[in-house]
């Protein structure tokens, strides 16, 4: 686990630097053991920084989400670096963003967190209803320790771990300037069992399954906005003229939206799982993303977000690319 004192010490040094504008990390949430993003600009604020298994947010999103207004006449743009804390999975978003030339490497300073896994809040809520709001959770070895109402409870790590962590190939960040702890060896691999189960279903079964999920969608676009790879300044969904997708919320338009979203992430999704985590109506978006992920790996031996020097998959063409899936 990351030593919090060490984390704060390093953060203090970084934010004191003249060439650093802001540090994005985690701090305690407003209730229960929720954690939330922290935006530190002053050394006096570093003592609120934390890291725990509740630090689920992928902070790489904020690198591309930041709004840049036109610089007023007579003023210089602030070109100082932004420092960001990333877990293994989150770091892949940075790698993929840089692979796509979203920004230059010098713009960011990366604090890598070798990650031993984060919790799935829904799993905790299901197993210990209401506890999230009034307890604490820490990871000790292969167990989560929950403290609530004066009680202590031990739960095997695998039971409360986020699904993405149970098949994480890259727990140690793939890009960093400073690592906050010893490297963590890969503790799982991805056998795509869930995707294979989905593939085996008939077209009718798949449609019935997704129709139910998509009919719940309220088009809040939280899945788009939270995604570190959805950083187009002019999103096709916001366009009114031409309007590529209607604003009407019904199963047909919702399906079109989710197909567009998934396709735009093919060969780009780095499996941080944020889209599914934030969905208020529990649409299992990662099942779509993972199907593409598996296809891309099988067809092109390519894993998004693992090599910043590699050309982005879908903007390259090789004469020996496999084409046997093309009719």
């Amino acid at each position, binding site marked *: 686990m990351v030593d919090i004192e060490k984390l704060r010490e390093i953060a203090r040094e970084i934010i004191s630097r003249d060439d650093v504008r802001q540090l994005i990390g985690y701090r305690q949430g407003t209730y229960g053991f929720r954690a939330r993003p922290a935006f530190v600009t002053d050394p006096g604020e570093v003592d609120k920084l934390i890291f725990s298994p509740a630090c689920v947010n992928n902070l790489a999103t904020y690198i591309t989400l930041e709004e840049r207004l036109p610089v007023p006449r007579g003023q210089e743009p602030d070109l100082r670096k932004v420092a960001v804390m990333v877990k293994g999975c989150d770091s892949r978003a940075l790698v993929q963003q840089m692979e796509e030339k979203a920004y230059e490497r010098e713009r960011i300073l990366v604090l890598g967190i070798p990650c031993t896994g984060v919790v799935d809040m829904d799993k905790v809520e299901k197993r210990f209803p209401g506890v999230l709001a009034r307890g604490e959770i820490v990871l000790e070895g292969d167990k989560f320790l929950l403290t609530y109402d004066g009680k202590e409870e031990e739960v095997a790590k695998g039971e409360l771990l986020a699904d993405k962590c149970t098949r994480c190939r890259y727990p140690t960040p793939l890009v960093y300037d400073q690592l906050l702890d010893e490297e963590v060896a890969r503790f799982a691999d991805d056998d795509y069992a869930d995707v294979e189960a989905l593939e085996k279903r008939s077209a009718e079964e798949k449609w019935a399954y997704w129709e139910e999920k998509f009919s*719940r969608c309220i088009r*809040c676009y939280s899945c788009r906005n939270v995604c570190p790879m959805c950083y187009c300044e002019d999103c096709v969904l916001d366009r009114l003229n031409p309007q590529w997708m209607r604003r*009407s919320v019904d199963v047909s338009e919702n399906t079109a939206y989710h197909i567009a979203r998934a396709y735009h992430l093919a060969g780009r999704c780095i499996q941080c799982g944020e889209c599914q985590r934030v969905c208020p*109506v529990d649409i299992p978006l990662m099942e779509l993303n993972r199907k593409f992920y598996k296809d891309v790996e099988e067809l092109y031996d390519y894993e998004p977000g693992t090599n910043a020097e590699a050309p982005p998959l879908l903007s390259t063409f090789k004469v020996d690319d496999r084409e046997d899936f093309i009719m």
Partner: protein
Amino acid sequence: MAVKKLSKDKVKEALQELTKFRLIAPAKSDEVVIFKQIENPDEAYLEYGNSTVPPKRVVFPQTETLFRFLRGSPELKEKDVEEEGTTVIFGLRPCDARAMAIVDRLFSWDYEDPYYLKRRQLTTLVGLACVEPPSVNCFCTSLGGSPFGTEGLDILLTDMGDHYLVQALTEKGEKLQETLSAHLEDAPAGDEKKAEELAAAAEGKIARSINTEGIPEKLPTLWEHELWKKVSAACLGCGICTFLCPTCHCFDIQDEVEETGEGRRARMWDSCMFSEYTLHASGHNPRPTRRERTRNRISHKYSYYPKRFEVIACVGCGRCINLCPVNIDILEILEQVVDAS
């Protein structure tokens, strides 16, 4: 009208009776609780906390046709809300009913919205008191509501263990109670007193609060205050807080035309947190960043609305806190407003 009881083993037959109307009740879609039209009483899920999407969408649908047209033809076919028929929303929470009472003021203000108001007129609200507050972030008591609040409701049901206590609150409610009379019995003596005790206990369990006094007047004085930048720093700009808010009522109007020339004018929910919400045709946006949008969300609820309608447009249901992906917490923002100087 006398208070009645609805025995739990008669709930299904009562719901069956109500399916002669358009019956809307909480139901499960996978693990998500939503309000939907039910044909079969088994679909209703009354042992719920609160629904993810508020029942506002029954009276204010996320997308609704206003009228249909044929390109090139001057004739319009207006939507007749009457065709939807009499509606009963069964088992909604008091905060969500109160939210409808609050939003009614807007839709009947300078222009009487025929679609919304007709639908409201056709709808009877059967509430289910919160014996246990559904969420740790409930704060209805700070806004003049209560877990047993009756504002906006036509009937209040209280879970008494083996039965529901049924209290008709309005003429509409009495009429519906009459419809259900074959399934109701006289309430046991002492039930009303017991319900009062349950109500007091439930109020005591509301863990979070805010003193709203002075906030509507103070908000406009903090227009350029640094707090807005801080509280909106983590905002993703998604529509969760507004779409899932039972009082948010902004909408957009768009024409949708098919290749045949047949089309419709439809209105659909809009969110002040979206980047194109106030985007002008010129390209200028008076709310260029999430800072201004967050300030607007809070100011609309806690300042503009009370100034015009004498009620804060928030019922303390806690959905925006519970479901925000980055833990932006309206109570924390309001506390900062109170403390700001």
